């Protein structure tokens, strides 16, 4: 099943199960979704539950949050999370903080979803990753699926969750197909929020990643295996809450850590993971934590520059080798 169909089926099932769930966003209805994620939903549920909005993120996000205040369960789609910046005040100040400011009176059972991070050749204004920004906000939950099973289970969990959830998808993953278990196809299937998944077990180095980077990390693991390095790949799934127990347990086993993310390096997810590990497992580290992230520049358009601005498999391999003191640049002292 590909990720697009996984998301579509999750939306379909949750809308079918709970009449309070409705979808709103640009082109989600008649256009069948800008990336076809909401295909068929308008026909099935009608225009009262699948709303095409004007191109007014601040307005429609506020309306979605207000509907959630009243008790409905909106799923607000941003065509990409770059456009969420127009609505960020509603996400943070109207949604994330309300339950706290009202001491529990006003809860906000809303999901904000859409593609996040770099696509291909879309330039600086359409390529930012928002995991770190939203991930720093108390009151929000931030999820980022990789596989189809992740997409199904996490989106269903997000829609059922009584708190505001930021659901960061990836445009380039929509078409990618993954095997899905029978359990995952069941309409009651849900993945826990706040739990990472060990995609591949290993002994020598821990590599954390989320969304598209998980795929790259897995490929890097194959290459590393040929050189005798056994990498443990952790698919974070949840940026907030971050599954620091799983990460720490893994680092205590492997003693080495490489964090991988697509977004800007400064104040990024990797920086947080590094600190979390230093706080809990400093004594277990045999090497400094390595960080692979997007380049510290706005995303360029030219294909060669774009390639340099986003992590590649070789970057992950190189960082893992450095963490294992197997970097070719260093003199062999072992």
């Amino acid at each position, binding site marked *: 099943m590909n990720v697009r169909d996984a998301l579509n089926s999750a939306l379909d099932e949750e809308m079918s199960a709970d009449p309070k769930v409705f979808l709103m966003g640009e082109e989600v209805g008649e256009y069948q979704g800008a990336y076809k994620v909401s295909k068929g939903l308008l026909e099935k549920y009608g225009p009262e539950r699948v709303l095409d909005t004007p191109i007014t993120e601040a307005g429609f996000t506020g309306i979605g949050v207000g509907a959630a205040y009243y008790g409905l369960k909106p799923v607000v789609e941003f065509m990409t999370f770059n456009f969420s910046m127009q609505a960020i005040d509603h996400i943070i100040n109207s949604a994330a903080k309300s*339950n706290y400011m009202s001491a529990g009176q006003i809860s906000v059972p809303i999901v904000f979803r859409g593609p996040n991070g770099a696509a291909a050749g879309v330039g600086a204004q359409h390529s930012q990753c928002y995991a770190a920004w939203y991930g720093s906000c108390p009151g929000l939950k931030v999820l980022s699926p990789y596989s189809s099973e992740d997409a199904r289970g996490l989106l269903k969990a997000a829609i059922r969750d009584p708190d505001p959830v930021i659901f960061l998808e990836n445009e380039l993953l929509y078409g990618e197909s993954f095997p899905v278990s029978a359990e995952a196809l069941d309409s009651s299937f849900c993945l826990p929020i706040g739990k990472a998944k060990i995609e591949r077990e290993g002994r020598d180095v821990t590599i954390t990643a989320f969304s598209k980077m998980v795929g790259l990390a897995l490929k890097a693991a194959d290459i590393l295996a040929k050189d005798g390095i056994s990498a443990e790949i952790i698919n974070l799934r949840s940026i907030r809450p971050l599954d620091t127990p799983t990460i720490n347990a893994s680092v205590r086993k492997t003693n080495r850590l490489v964090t991988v993310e697509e977004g800007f390096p400064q104040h990024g997810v990797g920086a947080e993971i590094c600190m979390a590990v230093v706080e809990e497992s400093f004594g277990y580290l045999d090497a400094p934590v390595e960080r692979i992230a997007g380049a510290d520049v706005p995303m360029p358009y030219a294909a060669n520059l774009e390639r340099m601005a986003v992590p590649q498999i070789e970057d992950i391999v190189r960082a893992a080798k450095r963490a294992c003191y197997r970097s070719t640049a260093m003199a062999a002292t072992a």
Partner: protein
Amino acid sequence: MALSTSFRSNLIKPLTALTALSSTQHLRRPFSSSVDDSTALTIETSVPFVGHKCEPPSRNVETTSKELLGFFHDMALMRRMEIASDSLYKSKLIRGFCHLYDGQEAVAVGMEAAITKKDCIITAYRDHCIYLGRGGTLVECFSELMGRQAGCSKGKGGSMHFYKKDSGFYGGHGIVGAQVPLGCGLAFAQKYSKDETVTFAMYGDGAANQGQLFEALNMAALLDLPAIFVCENNHYGMGTAEWRAAKSPSYYKRGDYVPGLKVDGMDAFAVKQACRFAKEHALKNGPIILEMDTYRYHGHSMSDPGSTYRTRDEISGVRQERDPIERIRKLILSHELSTEAELKNIEKKIRSEVDDAIAQAKESSMPDPSELFTNVYVKGFGIEVAGADRKEVRGVLP
């Protein structure tokens, strides 16, 4: 500047209609020693309504003696609460922001008279009196202002974040203008749930220029949402007079294709009539804008004296000519529903009620330190969370 002086003189319109009232024989009832609570009355509003793309409602408002006396009591209570909050702020028991509503009471009270607790109200940060009108208590107000457990948000919200969901009051918002799309969202949900209720989304003349208002209005009109936009035009957005912030300060016309009504916001009966009219309209035809021409005696907040951008003459002039409580007092007296002494007595009782509430609020303790970590989420999954020193203060999100 010619523009500003004509603007200032416009705010102090004498209540010509009211002086005419006392000599209008057909509105006087013969004196009776026992006044029936439900004695029907018809009160004429101070000035006619001005409509934009709609036929304005009649100036004659149906009411009862009970309602009239109720208006006096409720507004006097609100007035006293705000004045008392001023003192509490000056004695540093209230911290941070404190935006007072005195002068604008007629809007809160008139609106409540026209609607039910199933209708929703959402407003910005000048929310204490709206909260009271929705059924909140004085103790809850003062406790919240002083950051105590007995507060309506358990001390965690403060002046700008009062909520009462069970009476349809959705806050209490600090970001100017944000409450309006939220209000349209409430209206959306009411329509979605087929509740046959409406939402009043309140905002000021300063917020009226916000883009998100127009975004929300567009969608409300497209979807025929039962949303009523209420602009409480007190003529100053913090220190900026309306003519300096808005090219067109006819806020009731700003909806263009959406009908609007200009209302004397210092006249509780005009407010009541307008809200009743708006509710009927919104349930059938979608959004409508009400512009309440009102005035705040205090500055924007407690840190603003309110007299650097307006003259003391203007402030005292409005108090003299248009005070909402005085208007009701004159109506009560001219209809012989009570006496000067009785009304003074009610005000005295209110003073002591407010003093008692403050004393009680002062007794309430500050929130327990463990409350730092509660209500971050509805469902916290037992995740660990930390204070400033992660090795020192840790909690678990319930």
